């Protein structure tokens, strides 16, 4: 069971307080009517499913009820950082600097 740092509560809390909410930074198309079925299905279904550094969303369901973002290594399962919803995806350099796994 993971120990997850909620950036809103600023606390490390056990995974059972949280719900995983899928890949982060997938923008909902603004011009949905104008794009093709293929482009729309890309938004709906295509996921990076990254082996390694993965940006994802978590929901502090049994806590502050906030959704937030996290960077996690899907090979080691180690969280590298968590950050508030709306903040940009960290740069590779920022992620590298925050890593203590390998």
């Amino acid at each position: 069971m993971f120990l997850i740092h909620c950036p809103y509560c600023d606390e490390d809390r056990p995974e059972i307080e949280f719900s995983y909410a899928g890949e982060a930074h997938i923008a909902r198309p603004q011009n949905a009517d104008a794009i093709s079925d293929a482009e729309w299905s890309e938004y709906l279904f295509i996921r990076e499913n990254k082996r390694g550094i993965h940006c994802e969303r978590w929901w502090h369901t049994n806590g502050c009820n906030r959704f937030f973002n996290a960077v996690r290594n899907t090979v080691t399962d180690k969280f590298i950082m968590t950050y508030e919803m709306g903040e940009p995806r960290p740069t590779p350099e920022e992620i590298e600097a925050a890593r203590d796994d390998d």
Partner: protein
Amino acid sequence: MKFSARSLFANALTGHKNWPEQFPDKEPEKQYDVIIVGAGGHGLGAAYYLAKKYGIRNVAVIEKGWLGGGNTGRNTTVIRSNYLYDESAAIYDHSVDLWDGLSQELNYNTMFSKRGVLMLAHNIHDVQSFQRHIHANRLNGVDNQWLSREDCKAFLPILDISERPHYPVLGGALQMRAGTARHDSVAWGYARAASQIGVDIIQNCAVTGIRRSKDGAVTGVETEKGFIKANKIAVSAAGHSAVVMAMAGLRFPLESYPLQALVSEPVKPVMPCVVMSNAVHAYISQSDKGELVIGAGTDQYTSYSQRGALHILEHTLMSICELFPIFKRMRMLRSWAGIVDVTPDRSPILGKTPIEGLYVNCGWGTGGFKATPGAADLLAYTIAHDEPHKINAPFNLDRFTGGRLIDEAAAAAVAH
């Protein structure tokens, strides 16, 4: 050397010193007609059928680790085909047809055991959903029957059918043709049979890239053992499918989750069939060795760590103990995790890809083992003909664009 009681006897007399290698581990040739990435049951089986049924023998199966070491060797071996939709029933029933007789076909005892799969109904919604399945299966010619509560008890005497406050047994759907097989033997049997007809199996050789020509078609794979040429490449890499597809520049509708399973210590026969309970989230069978084999749920997050959390197992065992209070004193011997690749509709993707010469067989989620022979055969067909068989045609990638999903899980939607 043909496997038989006779050859076993003869070899016993010579101290078992003369058995040949079942599947020699080969160094790669420079070029193959077809390269299959992933030496699980699906990939090895596809190589076997390519060579056996479709006459394409210059085939290599390339495996990052050891053959059969992914989900083939990590699953709970449930085999059944009583799916709702015509497309699913067809693909899984094709597989069950092949399971029947697979040992003889491969001259390798895969221990397919038609012990029956009993799915328990615990509420009215389950009953309605199972009836829908049973009626659809009946008209599709797929074996599946309704058992009343008492019939369930008669079929499985250790079942508790008392009026429990939670999840009483209201009845069940029984598929008698369904059952289990010995997972390792399936991989080994296909590997041996494929090797014998000329397929090269190359283990400990990770694929690191997929090379394409200027016009986009695949030309071969980069591996830890160098570049290997092939104009047809099939990816059958289960949890790692998305990673391999990305090497060809394709993004796939897949997410990989940890799925855990466990076995108990072995005991004498007590569980004569497979029992599944979707409502309680538990399924259980007993291996020939005597271990209770129990499938747990997936963890909630994507991961490639082959490691899951304890609370998933706790939940599973709490469900098993609730269904079978006599098992509370049984003990968990071993638990492990695999990586399952899940599509948005939880049905597989099996067919061609937008890239010429690149084929895919993935997205089987938690249910890939039962499909092994069928998926392998259909993948081989698709590679050989460069077009899908009518059974796997609906399981194409385009369905996610148009919206013609095959969503078995949605069809089992929980009412209110």
